[in-house]
């Protein structure tokens, strides 16, 4: 199995642990990821809020490079994934748009290749049975609120992935890793995206609702597939107070980090020392970092 890999800008900076853990587990599962040569930024929401053609063309250059190599594209960042899918769909639907896009990027692009998000590749293409067979340190007793956010599943016409209201791919993954996905209502609610920087008064209540709901559902932690969601959920947790004036303590993981742990990698190798909410106490309390045979016995 071989994919063109598009890490995106965040995975080279604030989302670096996603990049590290994604590469590690993909390799462990025998999936070859060839980084797109000289890739550029997808434009994120800044582009589509400014100029529609720019929003189509920036991803198109990357997709065209992958197409030349005859490869489908695997994208870890939910936001980049969404922009790539928008371009792919628009180019497939209209030959006029295709002509415009090719003119702007000065390359041929026919959208003969397909973009998948990394969660889709690892869980659906590789398969949860294959993953389960690689688990040496099951996440026994770890209650995970799987957080999908907006751009992985919406709009469904474009993302073509899972259910837009109640996606289950990550939940199935957590189960395959031996953990317990909790049922909760906020798995696709928006985290506030860029508003946490530019408009905290709007973003913080949105984040609070997510923490609140995850905690009420009995979750010990959150899992995400998006570097922006991760940054918001992890970095802002100390600032977002709970209703009673206390603060939350919900470690946040990339799903690839949870995979890495269960496959026997050390937290440090998976970039977990870089989190704002330190996950070590939780992993220790659940005793998931040791082999099942040597784990503490439950009283």
């Amino acid at each position, binding site marked *: 199995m071989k994919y063109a890999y598009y890490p995106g*800008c*965040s995975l*080279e*900076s*604030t989302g*670096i642990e996603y990049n590290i853990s994604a590469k590690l587990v993909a390799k462990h599962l025998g999936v070859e990821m060839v980084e797109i040569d*000289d*890739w*550029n*930024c997808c*434009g*994120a*929401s*800044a*582009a*589509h*809020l*400014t*100029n*529609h*053609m*720019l929003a189509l*063309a*920036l991803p198109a*250059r990357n997709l065209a490079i992958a197409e030349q190599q005859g490869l489908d594209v695997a994208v870890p960042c939910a936001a980049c994934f969404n922009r790539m899918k928008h371009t792919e769909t*628009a180019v497939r639907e*209209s030959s*006029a*748009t295709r002509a*415009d896009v090719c*003119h*702007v*990027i*000065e390359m041929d692009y026919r959208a003969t290749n397909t973009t998948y998000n990394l969660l889709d590749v690892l869980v659906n293409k590789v398969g949860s049975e294959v993953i389960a067979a690689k688990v040496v340190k099951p996440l026994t007793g770890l209650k995970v609120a799987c957080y999908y956010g*907006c*751009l992985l599943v*919406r*709009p*469904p016409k474009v993302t073509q992935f899972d259910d*837009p*209201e109640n996606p289950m791919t990550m939940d199935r993954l957590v189960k395959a890793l031996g953990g317990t996905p909790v049922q909760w209502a906020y798995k*696709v*609610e*928006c985290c*506030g*995206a*860029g*508003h946490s*920087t*530019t*408009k905290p*008064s*709007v973003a913080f*209540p*949105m984040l609070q609702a997510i923490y609140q709901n995850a905690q009420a559902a009995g979750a010990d932690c959150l899992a995400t597939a998006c570097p922006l969601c991760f940054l918001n959920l992890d*970095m802002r947790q100390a600032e977002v107070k709970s209703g009673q004036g206390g603060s939350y303590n919900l470690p946040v993981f990339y799903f690839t980090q949870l995979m890495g742990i269960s496959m026997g990698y050390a937290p440090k190798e998976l970039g977990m*020392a*870089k989190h*704002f909410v330190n996950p070590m106490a939780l992993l220790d309390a659940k005793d998931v970092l040791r082999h099942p045979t040597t784990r503490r016995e439950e009283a």
Partner: protein
Amino acid sequence: MDYLDLSAALAGAERFLHHVEQESGVHVSECYQCGKCSAGCPVAFAMDYTPRQVIRLLQLGMREEVLNCRTIWLCASCQTCYTRCPRAVDLPRLMEAVRIEAKRAGIVPEKHINLFNDLFLKSVAKNGRVHEMGLILQYNLLSMQPLKDAFKAPKLFLDGKISPIPHKIKNQAAVQRIFERSMAHGGESR
């Protein structure tokens, strides 16, 4: 009693509406005002007009009200409304189109949000990729909050998450040309 001459407003706003519909590919007449968009919108609590009201204003041709509303800036493009709308009205796309018009008309009530987007794109145009540290520093300086999130910077820096040096791609010229050609194209969908 105050009243509004709707037919006059509509006539004056016709060109504006036509332009917005063309840019967004949305026909505002398709909305039947059920309100499902507003019910599920996670940002509605902070908006001056709910998403449904924004469409209503457009249907009534109330150009000034729409161009001046904060909602078009606060929409997080989360796609919830579009996903749920029984008429498949692409509201986030419509908000975008109105916002681009508002910006053209010099109406920018949410200065920080606008500044952040502009700086983001500048960074991409210059380097081919966005340079997160440069972006945040510039944003903090230009939005006059130089110490915003300052206590987080040392950790991000030591963890290797932010770097003082931008990542430049080799073929930066190609990206520069994508910017130039896109702007020349105008951005309308077809």
